[in-house]
């Protein structure tokens, strides 16, 4: 039990190292879920629950200065409790979301108080021209947070898993069914957020093209992406730059038309 809690804590620590190794998505539920599955002896459930949580937390992604719910602590504990209680993906989000909200509250203490203070310490070393110590503080600041996440998951799992089992069994069916419905709808928030970043009048029809291809023709996402590439290469003239260099005269004629 303690060993499992320790290993799950290590998964959370590793997840946070996402930001030390190139913001490479290591922290996402789709990656951490299978690892949790391995620790708890049910890889298959870990993969499936990870995918479900990935979609439910699709919109929980840091863009600009938006701090999303903590998907690491929420994802790891949510997946773990769902596997331990044997309730599967449906219950995972019910567990993961409140935990993620609680964890981000702790995160925010670091983001708004602890880290800015460490930034001041880095300033002092910069004044002295000490490059090495500025680097040390930068990395230490990150690893401190990793350690905090380790503790949250370690304590959460060792204290919680028995209590969680009883708690989950006590939840009325209407709540679990309701949250299953919500889990189905939630990826919509993520897609809406992503669409908002790139949507403009020119590309709106292509959104519906993708939708229709999937809804009527049952084309998988990979197929839609490949079709998208074909459309791009047949309709957009990427070689415009070359013709501009080679035939400046022709380009000038074009400009006159406007």
């Amino acid at each position, binding site marked *: 039990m303690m060993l499992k809690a320790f290993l799950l804590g290590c998964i959370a620590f590793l997840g946070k190292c996402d*930001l030390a190794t*190139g913001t*490479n*998505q*290591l922290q*996402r539920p*789709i990656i951490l*879920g*299978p690892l949790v599955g391995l620790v708890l002896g049910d890889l298959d459930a870990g*993969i*499936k629950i*990870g*995918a*479900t949580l990935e979609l439910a937390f699709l919109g929980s992604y*840091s863009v*600009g*200065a938006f701090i999303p719910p903590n998907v690491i602590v929420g994802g790891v504990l949510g997946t773990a409790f769902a596997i331990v209680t044997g309730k599967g993906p449906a219950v995972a989000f019910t567990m993961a979301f409140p935990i993620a909200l609680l964890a981000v509250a702790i995160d925010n203490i670091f*983001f708004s108080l602890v880290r800015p203070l*460490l*930034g001041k310490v*880095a300033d002092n070393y*910069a*004044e002295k*021209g000490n*490059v090495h110590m*500025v680097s040390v*503080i*930068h990395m230490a*600041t*990150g690893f401190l947070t990793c350690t905090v996440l380790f503790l949250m998951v370690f304590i959460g799992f060792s204290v919680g898993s028995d209590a969680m089992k009883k708690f989950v069994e006590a939840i009325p069916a209407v709540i679990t*069914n*309701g949250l299953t*419905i*919500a889990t*189905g*709808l939630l*990826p*919509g*928030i993520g897609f*809406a957020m*992503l*669409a*908002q*970043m*790139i949507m403009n009048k*020119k590309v709106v029809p*292509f*959104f519906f*093209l*993708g939708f229709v291809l*999937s*809804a009527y023709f049952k084309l*998988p*996402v*990979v197929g839609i*992406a490949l079709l998208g590439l074909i*459309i791009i290469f047949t309709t957009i003239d990427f070689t*415009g*730059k070359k013709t*501009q260099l080679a035939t400046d005269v022709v380009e000038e004629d074009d400009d006159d038309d406007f």
Partner: protein
Amino acid sequence: MTSKVGTPINAENGGVITEKDLVRMFWRSLPMEFSWHYERQMHMGFEFMVGPALKKIYKDDPEGLKEALHRNLEFFNCTAHVTPFIGGITLAMEEMNRANDDFDASSINAVKAALMGPLSGIGDSLILGTLRVLAVGIGTSLAIKGNILGPILFFLIFNIPTFILRYVCAIKGYELGANYLEKVQASGLMEKFMLAAAILGVMVIGGMTNELVVAKTALKIGSGKSATQIQSVLDGIMPGLLPLAATAIYYKLLQKKTNVILMIIGTAIFGIICAQFGILAA
């Protein structure tokens, strides 16, 4: 630009930065967001990235080094994967600052600040808006069936292009200096690239809206065996109508700047209400 690894790229103008230094900067750009905070955001990450190179540039000028370290600990925030580009430009300018006494050092932070916004705009939409969608779409469609290739492909699809991009950014940022964005923008290539990415991105989002947003009604008209399932009526009008409607509502709410966390909580409550009255099926 016939640079070898060991010789300074910009030696004719008194530069000391070699390709090896830029490769080192690429590696040191990886923990960019590791110490992010609200006040100055990625400032320590940026200093971590350029620190050793600054030390090299201001090797015989301790006062200059202190000023440079101070300067590069100012506010910084950008899509992490393209930050080496700004790092490269910064180093090119720091070298100019070291070589010319009348160089206005404040222009370094001005250029950094001017690049953060546009580069984040491009980076967020290409990397987070398009590439991440592709990775999630392909990864989850496999993983949801329990296929271990799902997480693996998710990781590779996101990381192979972003690591290459990071590397190219580190080299090109330094080589081409501050005019690069201007050049690319003037040629119109960036605009076409953005359009292409947007087309690919929204098509995939469109497909995923149907495939991965799940909403089916449990309502019936009539009772017993003669009951008409509303869902089959809806499917007759258009398959995936409810997922599309749900996503459209979320989109409108986001445009009205609704808090995302409230939307998630609202969805949970809505789900429970639907379960209670059998409006949607679990």
